[in-house]
């Protein structure tokens, strides 16, 4: 409870320590030499005072920063004049030097405008005095609305065009390929599937090869392993990824090698069967012929 009361008192004390300005005057001096002077009573609210100066005129502003309560001159750590164009949003901040007694002066000559003056247009600049001191609450006082001649437009940079917004990229894609008529596709699909197989099966039936050991315990696992490899490749086409195929292929190959699913019959027996086959089919060659150059 005591802490709350102390904080409230502290807040009240801070509120009481405020800055104010006294003897605010501005003069407009023209080349003709007839100055016009006017006093101001700036407040925190928007000012209705309008000041207009022309190219050959000088604006002189003077004021004194005082303690609102005691009336003594105060030298704030920060004193700025803010020039703000509400229409364009341009803003310029001009520091003002304040003496130890709180007095300050500012001259604005359009013959030599300060760098802090923002680009101007036909709209007025709102001039605000900003004060900041360590022992006081900050003060923001609206002085007047300043009309000055419009500034020239900024020179165009020679490479300004490079920073323009570029047109959106429009990709032109190749038109979709024309698909043939379904009947034509079906016809050729049927031809490719049927005709070669018809030729193959017809020729094989006419040859009638004998494969007595096709389902023997030696050969059937070998044939099954070949079928397993082909099925693995089919699954690769449909579903599996490369890593899966290589893994399964390695496992299957390892299984085939370990279980020796190769070499259907011993070599000698097989060679003897070949000789028998040659004799059966009447292909009897002399050694001279067998040593001749190879033929298909």
């Amino acid at each position, binding site marked *: 409870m005591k802490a709350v009361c102390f904080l409230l008192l502290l807040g009240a004390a801070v509120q009481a320590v405020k800055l104010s300005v006294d003897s605010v005057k501005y003069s407009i001096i023209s080349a003709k030499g007839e100055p016009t002077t006017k006093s101001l009573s700036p407040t925190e609210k928007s000012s209705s005072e309008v000041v207009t100066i022309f190219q050959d005129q000088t604006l002189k502003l003077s004021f004194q920063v005082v303690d609102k309560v005691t009336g003594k001159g105060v030298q704030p750590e920060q004193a700025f004049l803010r020039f703000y164009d509400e229409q364009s949003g341009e803003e310029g901040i001009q520091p003002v030097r304040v003496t130890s007694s709180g007095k300050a002066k500012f001259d604005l000559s359009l013959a030599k405008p300060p760098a802090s003056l923002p680009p101007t247009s036909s709209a007025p600049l709102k001039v605000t005095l900003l004060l900041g001191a360590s022992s006081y609450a900050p003060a923001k006082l609206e002085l007047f609305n300043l009309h000055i001649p419009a500034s020239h437009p900024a020179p165009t940079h020679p490479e300004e065009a490079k920073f323009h917004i570029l047109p959106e990229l429009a990709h032109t894609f190749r038109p979709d*390929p*024309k698909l043939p008529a379904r009947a*034509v596709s079906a016809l050729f699909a049927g031809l*490719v599937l049927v*005709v070669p197989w018809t030729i193959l099966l017809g020729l094989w039936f006419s040859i009638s090869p004998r494969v007595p050991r096709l389902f023997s315990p030696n050969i059937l696992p070998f044939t099954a392993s070949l079928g397993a490899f*082909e099925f693995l490749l089919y699954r*690769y086409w449909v579903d599996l990824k490369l890593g899966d195929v290589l893994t399964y292929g390695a496992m299957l190959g390892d299984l085939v090698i370990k279980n020796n699913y190769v070499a259907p019959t011993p070599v000698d027996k097989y060679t003897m069967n*070949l000789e028998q086959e040659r004799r059966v089919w009447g292909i009897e060659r002399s050694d001279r012929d*067998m040593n001749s150059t190879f033929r*298909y």
Partner: protein
Amino acid sequence: MAPKSSSSFTFTKPSSQSASGSSNTVSTTASSSISALLSAYTNQTTPRLKFIDAFLVFLVSSGVLQFVYCVLVTNFPFNAFLAGFSSTVGQFVLTASLRQQVNPENKVEFKEVSHERAFADFVLGSIVLHFFVYNFLG
């Protein structure tokens, strides 16, 4: 010395009958050559080689039909055509190599390669070829 007029130099005018006769002779000669070739092939080729040759004919016909479709109709999708056509060509090469190695008449040339080894090479090459074909098929 004047040459003797003998029957060694005989000039006859060409007639239309002899021209058609020569073309008939050519076609007859061609057909008899083909029939002789077929007869020799049928009689002198082992069933195993005929078995392999039938597979080669199958591959050729399959490849030709795919190529004709690509030329006459469309090559879309092109990767599928390449996969199919190259599978027939690759398989033809492998099968022709197998035929060459198992032909008894080439025993001297391939005396270090047994038929089992030739078939194993054929099988392994076919599996690798099929792997690349499936990879490209899309």
